[in-house]
């Protein structure tokens, strides 16, 4: 990018943004080069940090006029490269729009700017006995705007839902710089319900500039029980047994042996390092309810073949049980120079088949895989351990990741449960969706952003991209899983 164009544009934006809110120095731009998927890097033309909605609108008007691609950015924790900059475009960081505008106790809602961190909302309303339910493991850092753009989940989403289920209203700025709002505080919207299109749209349909979130009362009581298993299959079957009993746990998470070992090394939660799998199951509600259900869950775990069950005695121990799971990614980061997180979702009944498939692939590629699993909702996170300094190992890792995702599709699942498509899973989108389905996605995008300036090149692959992917992956005219049922 020519320095003069960069300088000229920076001057244009400084007409209405504070000088320090227009980042144009290469050293400072480097901070924004990548998101949580650090394998992909790209320096943007400029980084802009508006401080209010009016400034976001002005930015968009200039970008329209200059035909500048715009990549919105919250905290940059995306694991799919969704916030990867565009070489010819600007990064629009919402980080400085980080105020909680209103907390309405009676209506149990909060109106916040997009750059507010997920955890900051719950902290701000804790004294009222309320909290914001979706709790991605990145919640200390990630922003509510990024959560909306990715439809983020967390360990409690089986019972309390994803971001979509906890949003009451959104204010967005369109690619043309106009404000549009979706208000569902009244639980009804005449006309089409656009909220589900916008939530999870990866910054491609509009810029989220204000979010009204639902607040829930903090449950009176939460208890955790851990089940220890000598096989992953038994652990998986126990999850099915608990749900078949009519119990919806607040959270139910599984870890396999490599993940257990890594987590134990890191946080010393007294996890059983010899176990093939552990299940961590949390129940919440009133004390009476929780006590009666936790007994039942313990019994079901034992019936399901648990070699041991442990009931957290107090709040400190409950948090200890969770600490290993919540720190699983950084824990794996300690035992391997690099790791690559996969996000496929499968029907739970396919768990054994998929995990043995993953094991076979792991051996074939000579790369270790540790598995953590949102077991209640079938969202699998295989973590592939690799070393980017070894020539060709990243490419091998990506290929293994792609194979795992195709295995998920093959078993009736999907390529991403919560991390989004970003730049990372464009190829697999060609497998999961047909040409006419992808065309429909492009058509929807054009309804919102005819200029196609919002996060171009992400989430929805072009025809050409799919032709390229298929040329690489179709052998003798067959997709890897010809019997593939895409639904």
């Amino acid at each position: 990018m020519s320095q003069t164009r960069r300088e000229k544009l920076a001057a244009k934006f400084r007409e209405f943004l504070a000088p320090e809110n227009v980042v144009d120095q290469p050293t400072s731009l480097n901070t924004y080069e990548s998101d949580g998927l650090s394998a992909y890097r790209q320096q943007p033309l400029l980084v802009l940090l508006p401080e209010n909605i009016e400034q976001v609108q002005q930015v968009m008007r200039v970008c329209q006029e200059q035909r500048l691609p715009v990549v919105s950015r919250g905290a940059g924790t995306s694991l799919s490269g969704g916030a990867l900059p565009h070489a010819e475009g600007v990064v629009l960081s919402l980080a400085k729009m980080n105020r909680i505008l209103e907390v309405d106790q009676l209506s149990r809602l909060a109106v916040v700017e997009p750059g507010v961190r997920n955890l900051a909302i719950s902290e701000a309303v804790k004294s009222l006995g309320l909290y914001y339910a979706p709790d991605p493991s990145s919640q200390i850092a990630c922003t509510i705007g990024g959560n909306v753009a990715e439809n983020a989940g967390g360990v409690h989403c089986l019972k309390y839902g994803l971001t979509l289920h906890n949003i009451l209203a959104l204010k967005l700025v369109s690619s043309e710089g106009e404000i549009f709002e979706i208000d569902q505080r009244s639980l009804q919207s005449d006309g089409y319900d656009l909220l589900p299109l916008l939530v999870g749209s990866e910054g491609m349909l509009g810029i989220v500039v204000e979010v009204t979130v639902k607040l829930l009362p903090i449950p009176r009581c939460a208890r955790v029980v851990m089940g220890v298993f000598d096989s992953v299959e038994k652990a998986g079957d126990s999850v099915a047994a608990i749900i078949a009993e009519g119990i919806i746990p607040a959270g139910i998470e599984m870890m396999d042996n490599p993940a257990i070992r890594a987590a134990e090394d890191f946080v010393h939660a007294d996890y059983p390092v010899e176990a093939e799998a552990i299940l961590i199951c949390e129940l919440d509600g009133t004390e009476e309810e929780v006590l009666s259900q936790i007994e039942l869950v313990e019994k079901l775990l034992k019936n399901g073949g648990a070699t041991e069950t442990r009931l957290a005695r107090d709040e400190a121990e409950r948090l200890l049980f969770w600490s290993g799971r919540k720190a699983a990614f950084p824990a794996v980061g300690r035992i391997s120079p690099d790791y690559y997180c996969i996000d496929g979702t499968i029907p739970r009944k396919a768990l054994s088949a998929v995990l043995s498939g993953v094991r076979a692939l792991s051996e074939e590629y000579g790369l270790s895989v540790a598995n953590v699993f949102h077991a209640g909702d079938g969202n699998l996170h295989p973590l592939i351990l690799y070393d980017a300094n070894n020539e060709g190992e990243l490419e091998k890792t990506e290929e293994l990741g792609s194979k795992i995702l195709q295995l998920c599709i093959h078993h009736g699942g999907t390529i991403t449960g919560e991390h989004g498509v970003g730049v990372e899973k464009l190829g697999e989108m060609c497998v999961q969706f047909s040409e006419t389905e992808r065309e429909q996605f492009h058509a929807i995008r054009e309804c919102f952003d005819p200029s196609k300036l919002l996060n171009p090149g992400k989430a929805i692959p072009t025809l050409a991209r799919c032709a390229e992917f298929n040329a690489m992956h179709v052998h003798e005219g067959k997709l890897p899983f010809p019997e593939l049922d895409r639904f």
Partner: protein
Amino acid sequence: MNSIDEVDIEAELTSQIISVAATGGEIEIIGGGSKRFYGQSLEALPVDVSGHSGIIDYDPAELVITLRAGCKLSEVEALLAEHRQMFGFEPPCYGRDATIGGMVASGLAGPRRAFAGGIRDFVLGVKILDGHGEINQFGGRVIKNVAGFDVSRLMVGSLGTLGVILEVSIRVIPSYETELTLAFEHDSADKHIRWINELGSEPWPISASLWVAGRSLLRLSGSVQGVQYAAQQLGGETAEPCWDELKEQALDFFDDAQPLTRISLPPATTDQLDDIPQLIEWGGAQRWLCAEVDIPALRSMAEGVGGSVCAFRRHAADVAVFHPLPPAMLKLQRSIKSSFDPAGIFNPGRIYPGL
């Protein structure tokens, strides 16, 4: 195992749509016909999709059911009940022939809406037949899925204007162990509104609320222990449940001779309709008026507080059924409609002109 017919008429429906599209015609999609009153009336060739029936997949432990859209709602609910499961959104039937496709397309939910979520919150995937005659699938059969824009949930409430829903996957929830209805006296609407919203700040197992004629009813649902404890703490008197009658609009309040208006407001809204006879549900978010009303005046009141007004049933033919959208939003929604149905063959004008 169940009595739901297995009939696949996808091919017939597709050729029907393709031939209508080729001749520039228009069609009205009919499921069971039970909710045909909902929305602007149309004159177009009726296409009956209720024959497209059958369970594609149901494994209770997965908490997901996948169905052809012509399945009868009552039969599906009976099947779920056999496995101690149900639809979380408690859909109204308005008659025995109501279909799953009609349920999704109309997007109408029952008393549990404010406490468990709406249809939108439970739909996971759809297979649709669009205006090009193409069959496309969006979403899937798993609970978490963020691949591609969430078109499946866009279908909820679209009243058949975006295409024919052929199949749908829906998340189901376990039935409750027990339910209990409590009654409380509140002589004004606003007193009820304040009371029910204050209750929301505690995690009570509330699954429905109702206020009509000076009396508040509350339904508690959950485990025996949880419901008993809540009932002790909340007080009130045990009352007869009337939730099915509420859902089906069969309570005395719903006078068949009068126009019925639905007012949707942020739940804690007070000082707006306090002295008007009304029925309030959904913790205050949904209010019904069963009388001659001034729709434009109600609409401007609702807009002022972030709500909307639907001329639900039995209004004069020249009254717009749905709350008008701001022009830019209408334009956006029309472009979305055209992206699915460029020739405008499906239920033309059902929601708004051009939609």
